[in-house]
């Protein structure tokens, strides 16, 4: 075999290596649930109409994104409700594994239209979860822990190609490393142990968090330690690609739980944690049918 073909063959073998599908199935269950409940929350507080309607029709945002096309199809007043209900319908289908692959793609497309309609509210976590849904659509995650496998009493001892899990881990690695390096490049004081800690300014910002800046003003050390820990964890995002990823996952859980407890970023922490089954895959007990053997 030539020297060019050998690495390619190695790569193809790595991509197609059979892996336990349960971690991917957990993503297929959790990711759409995050989106589903986040959208229900929007309805619960009565924001559906004003968020997903252009300003001229009575909505909040004066700015719409050029990727918006649904309004040409169904009209500017109906585009929001249509995209909202299509997304809302698709997400439980994905979780249940019923028509999962088309539901992932249609759901992600409709969810993207909501983002194009209301760009200020379409945050990084929305982009992450859409990207994961699209990758999952090419995986075999719909073969385990679905409504149908439950009805038929099928086992969870099913394998599929490794590459979708690897690609999602690659995305996580880029996300964490990018966030960490850009933090450090723009604000080296993330690593400082004097002056006002950067993390303190973030988690006591009244516009985004609920810790009182006055109450916490004299408590510096938790913020210095938290800030340094954040940088170490994020710059160390490449650990996601190694076999030590469950240990990295523990740090990630701590960071996201901290963010969830101190800031008001909606589903950000839960959405990121919904991807963590891919970090803890090595610690998962074997499937039931294998245990029985």
């Amino acid at each position, binding site marked *: 075999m030539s020297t060019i073909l050998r690495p390619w063959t190695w790569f193809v073998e790595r991509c197609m290596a059979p892996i336990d599908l349960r971690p991917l199935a957990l993503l297929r269950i959790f990711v759409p649930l995050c989106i589903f409940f986040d959208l229900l929350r929007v309805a619960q507080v*009565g924001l559906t109409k004003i968020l997903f309607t252009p300003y001229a029709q009575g909505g909040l945002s004066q700015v719409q994104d050029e990727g918006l096309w649904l309004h040409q199809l169904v009209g500017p007043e109906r585009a929001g409700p249509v995209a909202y209900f299509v997304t809302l319908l698709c997400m439980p289908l994905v979780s249940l594994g019923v028509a999962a692959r088309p539901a992932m793609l249609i759901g992600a497309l409709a969810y993207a239209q909501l983002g194009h309609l209301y760009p200020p509210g379409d945050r990084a976590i929305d982009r992450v979860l859409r990207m994961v849904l699209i990758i999952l659509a090419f995986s075999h995650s719909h073969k385990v822990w679905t409504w149908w496998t439950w009805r038929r009493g099928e086992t969870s001892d099913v394998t599929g190609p490794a590459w979708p899990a690897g690609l999602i881990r690659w995305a996580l690695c880029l996300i964490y490393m990018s966030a960490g390096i850009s933090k450090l490049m*723009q604000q080296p004081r993330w690593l400082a142990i004097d002056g006002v800690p950067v993390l303190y300014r973030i988690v006591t910002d009244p516009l985004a968090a609920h810790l009182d800046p006055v109450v916490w003003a004299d408590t510096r050390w938790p913020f210095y330690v938290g800030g340094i820990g954040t940088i170490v964890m994020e710059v160390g995002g490449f650990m996601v690609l190694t076999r030590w990823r469950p240990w990295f996952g523990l740090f990630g859980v701590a960071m996201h739980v901290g963010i969830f407890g101190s800031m008001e970023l909606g*589903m950000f922490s839960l959405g990121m944690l919904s991807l963590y089954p891919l970090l803890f895959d090595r610690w998962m007990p074997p499937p039931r049918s294998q245990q029985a053997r």
Partner: protein
Amino acid sequence: MNVSAHLQALGCLLAGALMLLLGTPGVDFLGRGDLRTPKERAALRKEVGEPAATIGITLADLNRSLRLPLYDKVAWVQKPFRLSQNWSLYRDGPHRVRRLEIWVDGDLKHRSADPDYTWLNPQLRNRRVRPMVESTTMKKGSPNWRGLSRYVGERAREDFPGCQRVELRAMEGPFPGEKMTQHHQIVLTAPSWTAEES
């Protein structure tokens, strides 16, 4: 191995390479004009010293000459699913404490992160509305201040029938925020309820 295996591996490789190109850690937040002029480069050298400055300048040059031309050719793939690969999140916190206050007919009804004034909290603290509240509070003439103030005005008329004046006051001050002053305000008054920013 069959053809399908090779195609899947090729797709994976392309997707991974695309993600790396579109969201390269360390340069994805650099603008096209960053660190271009001798003045900017000198300022960076003075601020961070060597070798960090040379590394930064080299990265900015590579980004401009190599990555961004490729980026421009493939960036369209992100559009349909709105998948922008820029992940430089929460780079720095705010340097001043800012709060939005809403006054209805002279009574304070809402103040950011104040448990005593929570009117419209579920709406204004919702993760999708919060960025708009943030931009409206941070600077005068933000892109969506009209939409936000119209919504607040409508809700004030619903919840406080007969009200005549609604004020959105953008307050700010140095950390920890004990001394706050008004940066700008948006006022809506009956009967026209047209929002005026000043």
